């Protein structure tokens, strides 16, 4: 009888831990999201992934890009990731094996949502 009790306690503790873990994750995301640009949502549904808390727009969002990858995955994976991203290149850039050389600064074009953005990359000489 005593053993069953012990088992039940362990089981209850396990579920409580799961709940706590999820709340901590959400809290972390809340803190992170405050740093990010926030968009209105275009869908009432949530994505399949439980931790997805914000969504970028199909149409992207010009001008408010903070160089911050506010991707919804696990908080730890994205916090602190910053990059220079621009929506158009200055004139006089040259094509460099799929990258652009703009006066020694290199950019890689990427599709963000349905918008082309240029991400600054390091090139080792």
């Amino acid at each position, binding site marked *: 009888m005593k053993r069953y009790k012990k088992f039940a306690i362990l089981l209850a503790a396990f579920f409580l831990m799961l709940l706590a873990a999820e709340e901590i994750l959400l809290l972390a995301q809340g803190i992170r999201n405050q740093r990010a640009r926030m968009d209105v949502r275009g869908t009432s549904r949530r*994505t399949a992934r439980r931790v997805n808390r914000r969504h970028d727009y199909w149409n992207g969002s010009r001008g408010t890009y903070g160089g911050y990858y506010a991707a919804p995955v696990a908080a730890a994976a994205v916090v602190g990731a910053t990059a220079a991203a621009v929506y158009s290149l200055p004139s006089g850039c040259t094509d460099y094996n799929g990258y652009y050389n703009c006066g020694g600064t290199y950019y890689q074009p990427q599709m963000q*949502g349905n918008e082309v953005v240029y991400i600054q990359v390091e090139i*080792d000489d």
Partner: protein
Amino acid sequence: MLSVSYGKTETLNLFSAKIQTPKIDKQADKILKQMSDHLTAMQQFSYKSQGSYEVVDKDKKKEQLTYSSEVFVKRPNKLRVNAKNNNRDAAVYYDGKQFTVLGKNANMYAVAEAPPTLDAALDSARDRFQMDPPGADLIYSNPYKGLMEEATQGQLVGEEVINGKASNHLAFKSKEVDWDIWIQKGSSPVPLRYKIISKNIPARPEFIVNFTDWKQGTGPDFADQQFVFSPPANSKKIPFMRLGDAPTASNTKKK
């Protein structure tokens, strides 16, 4: 011992809170279901949408942006979208195998393998490429299911005229968003307007879209080939920006 039993009760309370029955007005539910069944039955169709949405910057200032798009759906696994924004012009293709986005001004495109159904492809686009096509709720094979997933309250507000058409205005609430939908009255219950308020975000930004030109899809516009992307002349293939991408060692290029 006491604390443990408290813990157990708490767990039970949390569970019971989750299974509370949502308060959905029967008529609202019925009208939404009719729209959903109608869209499911259409199988192939096109419509136009004009939307506006607000983005909130970190100073909580709202900026309103608009877009217009033309959407072609062919169930179960084809989609084509032309979307325009002030200075952007993009096309999206999904042919059941691949998912492609073309930036027409830059003449660049990104391609990815896609799941075999439109439902799964839409989910995948959200998860992998941060794409949340506005109003996408309505092109899933069973819109009702997705819309009601999170709904906690729903009611029929009344009759309203949208772009000259009589419609039923329904209002729903869920944990993160409040949304309204206007559904055309009569034998063709298509959505005419859809509004979403992201209520947990400061400044409560709003998304609103008007739908027009609902058409049953026929003819050459719906031939399978129309949903297959073929790269325009001199276009350039680029990668999708993936979740968590950042200029790290992985996209550092060596000479």
